[in-house]
């Protein structure tokens, strides 16, 4: 705990900003039902009202309170995106690192399987798979995570390939260390900076991929509030100077920037540590 506080004291302003935003979002996400003034799908007023006393951010395209929708959206969007990114990263990074370290037929097999998945446009692939399996949230998370893990795999493998041929890895091999040890102790720490950077961006992309799915009618089902779908549903207003879609878009940008500011800070620290 003391270490944590010391850590925070040395952080730059940007990282603190990021951490504050993330923490606030998590609090909002957890306490959503307590904080939101109206229900998640409660229709309370006219469509696309501008901000007023009752509705500080106005209403959305069905007449629901924007603030409440954003609050519930925090819970849904962040949870889903985070889970998906964790799974994508877990599967992709581990497989990628192992593939690069082991080489041989395992590497070939995994790489070719990943190639096959990546060779087809993700959106279409998701369309086909989700049409067959349905769009419930668990299915959505697993499908998007697996599809995205292919990208992480490629990156992790490329990083590991570079590192795997360095002398210290050879040294470890000669010592007789098992693959798992090599991956964990030699390769992973060196690959970490780029992987962390990728994590931050992956989170972002997954957020947006789910909202692109709504372009094709898949994705998170209404009336569940989700920032990405909210941008889509309110987009029509922008032609007429109604800023409704800017609110969910803004919150997506805020969270993404924040996470990446924190990621930057980690990068800095890990670079310092290694120096």
């Amino acid at each position: 705990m003391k270490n944590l506080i010391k850590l925070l004291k040395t952080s730059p302003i940007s990282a603190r900003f990021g951490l504050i935003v993330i923490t606030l979002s998590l609090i909002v996400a957890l306490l959503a039902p307590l904080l939101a003034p109206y229900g998640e799908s409660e229709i309370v007023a006219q469509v696309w009202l501008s901000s007023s006393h009752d509705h500080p951010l106005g209403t959305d395209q069905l007449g629901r309170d924007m603030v409440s929708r954003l609050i519930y959206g925090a819970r849904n969007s962040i949870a889903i995106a985070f889970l998906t990114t964790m799974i994508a990263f877990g599967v992709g990074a581990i497989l990628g690192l192992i593939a690069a370290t082991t080489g041989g037929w395992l590497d070939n097999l995994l790489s070719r399987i990943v190639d096959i998945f990546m060779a087809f446009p993700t959106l279409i692939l998701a369309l086909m798979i989700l049409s067959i399996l349905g769009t419930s949230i668990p299915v959505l998370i697993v499908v998007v995570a697996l599809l995205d893990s292919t990208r992480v795999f490629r990156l992790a493998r490329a990083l590991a390939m570079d590192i795997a041929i360095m002398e210290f890895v050879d040294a470890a091999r000669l010592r007789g260390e098992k693959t798992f040890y090599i991956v964990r102790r030699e390769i992973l720490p060196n690959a970490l900076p780029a992987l962390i950077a990728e994590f931050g961006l992956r989170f972002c992309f997954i957020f947006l991929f789910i909202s692109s799915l709504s372009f094709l009618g898949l994705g998170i089902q209404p009336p569940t509030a989700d920032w990405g779908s909210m941008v889509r549903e309110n987009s029509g207003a922008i032609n007429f100077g109604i800023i409704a879609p800017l609110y969910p878009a803004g919150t997506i940008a805020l969270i993404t920037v924040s996470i990446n500011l924190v990621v930057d800070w980690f990068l800095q620290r890990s670079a310092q540590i290694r120096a």
Partner: protein
Amino acid sequence: MDFLIPLILKRTGFAFLTLFTISILIFVGVEALPGDTAEAILGQGATKENVAALRKELKLDMPVHTRYISWLGDLCQGELGNSLSNGRPVSEMIGWRFKNTLLLASSAAVVSIPLAILLGLICALYQNSWLDKILSTSTLSAISLPEFFVAYLLIVVFVVQFELFPSVAVLKSGMAISEIINILVLPCLTLTLVVLAHMMRMTRATIIGVLSSPYIEMARLKGVRKHKVIFYHALPNALSPIINVVVMDLAWLVVGVVVVEVVFVYPGLGQLLVDSVSKRDIPVVQTSGLIFACTYIFLNLTADVLSIISNPKLRHPK
């Protein structure tokens, strides 16, 4: 370097295997989707009789494996078949759209890749300075917005507010180059904004990581100037992951721009693929899918080869 040739040959062999597998997966995938072309075309007007009749006409009543083999046979003879929805030759439908997609993708690539690497380098050079922070944050914000939203914003600013460019990017044959460029600006800008941050941040992160290596410290101690350190010592060693990200984004540019096509009404391959999947038009889906797959495999191979070339250790394996 001699080992590169067998590697390329081996990978090409794998490529064919991959394509073959993909074609089977596409076939199976589209078949697994509920309904078929006949039902999709007739929609609300479908009756048992006219669906059966249309199926017969489109030869959809034959078993799956028969249809696949007959398609494969045609393909080997260079025949891409006809669309199930309107009977037009697939090659006619796809050819010009693919050209359009390549045009858009390459223009976005030509703008974004050099820009991304340059900006990544600058940010790494002036790490944690205000420049770095501003560049990072603004590019991050750009990619935090869904593509269609970036497109809408650009349209609101450049088309509605300032009337500089058109928002309808329908390409017609016989258009002048200047007109084509005019039409491409906004879609290209949208795509650039979306991929820029990814490549830029990866460049930055990798270079920063490399900068803390011992040989860099060595170079610094030797008194090598900062920008030389980055260009001659850091960058070459950071190339592999950067190339990977660039290639992935390139592949995405070719293959993932459906949303941009829809918003700007740009006639590319993405929209065709979505519509064809929706109508279960297997010949079209197969051919488009395989084209995308080939593009991706080719880019992939290029990335791997470049990675190997750029890393001396991989160039000369022990």
